[in-house]
């Protein structure tokens, strides 16, 4: 049975991304808010359905990271069936996960973020985009598109290019990898490695030349969280949740199934999205960062050689401790991109990858299941409860962008304090506020993409709540 849940249309369609900046009596910025309009309604929509449908339905939450939703969902289903996927099922899941990480990070760096700093924050906004980048450095733009295409081809080769059929199912995967597709994907590796390394060199050069700006851009310290393997290595697919403090000390490391013991959520009046926080530190001090910087700062090491070399260099920036500052999300993202390419190669070279033993078959053996995985934007949780027929009675999704919401608000506030003054939001300030959000690569796409929507809305308020300036951009 399909249940329809109606959500306020104005905030969702027009408020695709809304930022409010609040000034005090002295005209200086006191605080800023990034309003994310998430759809809690999806959880209600799913109730009453069979849990086995969820890996197919949940990618519809978001066309940006459908693989992650499908993966977390399938893992929750595995838990309900009390069943492990086959070894090849795990290899293939890891493969599509790594492919998604490459394509998502390539888009974020080459086409969304790099135009800001390669063309300049104060450059003509009409040119400060992927087309401007294509004009200034067409070779780089093409490399970026090809790298993204490589990441997408991983899942396309596995599923027959059916974008809406990802092939992730309870117990493993629905499709085996053919030998010719394995070979075709391996052919991409040298180019993908070269492009990933070139991107790292480009960014490191920029950071070196603009160290003062980078180190002061949305700079604040926080705990970090990510998934780690048995040796503390960063793991995109599976492992334990690890929180570290700003000094890098491990505060908690537990299986993902225990996430509710350590993460609580509080509703805020300015956004649909709840504010998750790390329970042991309480609401005021417990906001943490996930995603690229969260993972790289929480992990002890990388499991692939080239990424490990970059990881060591990165962490040396702060004496081996976590590196702070929103801009460093870009740096962490590129280390992960290189790691994901290496992971794709490692998995393709595993002799078991083309086995036909891709799925364990099972049935409901538990009434509850929790699945977690690392989406490009951070840790994603799916938590289901079912009745004896397997129908869902409760669905709870904790998404990465939600967990980074407090950090994004902090980042926007820091940048607004630094660059917004007086009664107008200047173009330069607007660009920098935008970029603070881009650092986190939030998924604002949990919404429709119909023609005619407004991508961004920024409003500046005075001390008495009067609107001083309002910019709608798109």
């Amino acid at each position, binding site marked *: 049975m399909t249940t329809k849940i109606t959500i306020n249309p104005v905030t969702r*369609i027009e408020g695709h*991304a809304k930022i409010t900046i609040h000034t005090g009596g002295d005209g200086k910025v006191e605080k800023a808010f990034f309003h994310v309009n998430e759809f809690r309604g999806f959880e209600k929509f799913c109730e009453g359905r069979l849990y086995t449908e969820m890996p197919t339905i949940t990618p*519809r939450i*978001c*066309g940006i990271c459908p693989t992650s939703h499908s993966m977390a969902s399938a893992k929750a289903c595995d838990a309900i069936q009390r069943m492990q996927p086959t070894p090849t099922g795990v290899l293939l899941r890891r493969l599509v996960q790594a492919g998604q990480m490459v394509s998502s990070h390539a888009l974020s760096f080459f086409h969304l973020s790099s135009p800001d700093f390669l063309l300049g924050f104060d450059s003509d906004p009409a040119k400060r985009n992927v087309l401007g980048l*294509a004009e200034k450095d067409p070779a780089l733009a093409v490399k970026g598109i090809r790298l993204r295409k490589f990441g997408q081809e991983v899942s396309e080769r596995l599923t027959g290019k059916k974008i809406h059929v990802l092939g992730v199912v309870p117990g493993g995967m629905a499709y085996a990898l053919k030998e010719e597709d394995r070979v075709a994907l391996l052919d991409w590796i040298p180019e993908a490695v070269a492009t990933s390394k070139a991107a790292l060199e480009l960014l490191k050069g920029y950071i070196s030349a603009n160290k003062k700006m980078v180190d002061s851009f949305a700079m604040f310290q926080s705990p970090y969280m990510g998934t780690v393997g048995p040796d503390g290595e960063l793991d995109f697919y599976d492992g334990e949740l690890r929180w570290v403090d700003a000094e890098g000390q491990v505060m908690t490391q537990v299986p993902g199934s225990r996430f509710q013991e350590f993460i609580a959520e509080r509703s805020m009046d300015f956004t649909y999205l709840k504010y998750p926080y790390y329970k042991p530190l309480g609401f005021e001090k417990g906001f943490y960062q996930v995603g690229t910087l969260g993972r790289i700062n929480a992990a002890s090491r990388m499991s692939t050689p080239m990424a490990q070399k970059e990881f060591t260099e990165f962490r040396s920036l702060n004496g081996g401790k976590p590196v702070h500052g929103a801009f460093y999300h870009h740096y962490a993202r590129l280390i992960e991109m290189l790691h994901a390419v290496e992971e794709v190669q490692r998995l393709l070279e595993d002799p078991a990858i083309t086995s036909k033993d891709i799925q364990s078959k099972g049935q409901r053996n538990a009434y509850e299941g929790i699945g977690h995985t690392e989406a490009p934007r951070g840790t994603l949780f799916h938590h289901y409860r079912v009745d004896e027929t397997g129908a869902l009675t409760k669905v709870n999704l904790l998404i990465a962008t939600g967990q980074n919401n407090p950090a994004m608000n902090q980042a926007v506030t820091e940048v607004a304090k630094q660059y917004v003054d007086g009664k107008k939001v200047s173009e330069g300030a607007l660009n920098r506020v935008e970029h603070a959000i881009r650092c986190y690569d939030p998924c604002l796409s949990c919404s429709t993409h*119909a023609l005619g929507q407004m991508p961004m809305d920024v409003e500046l308020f005075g001390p008495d709540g009067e609107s001083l300036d309002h910019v709608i951009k798109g």
Partner: protein
Amino acid sequence: MARILLIGYGNPGRGDDALGWAVAEAMDKLGLPGLEVKLDYQLNVEHAFDLKGHDAVIFVDAALAGPESFEFRPLTPSDPATFSSHSVSPSGVLALARDLFGVVVPGFVLAVRGYEFDEFGAELSPAARRNLEAATAFLKQELTRRSLAAV
């Protein structure tokens, strides 16, 4: 015979946002020679790749506003939206194909008017369903009667 690429996009789980997919799937079922159909959640930079080897491209999406039941219009390559919305406009895809790959392809958009975007579910609203029928009838006629590449 013109080689035409038809890209239907949107979210099939979000009410009338499924219109782009619905039109594309209806056209795919016709099995018209020279017609290649793609589906996606949104347009992005990599779609610039897909234009290569085609004589025309038609983007089909749901529309929040605009003429009923649909609007069919030619496109001019232009800058994509600048904010990090992880998507590119149809005109932006044309511009990227031109600037990066030297591929200049006539482009058209079929914007089918939708009304209900705030509900999860695979059902189109009754009004959107009527618009879907009108749009598919129009597009079928366009694709079978004449070569869009010559428009």
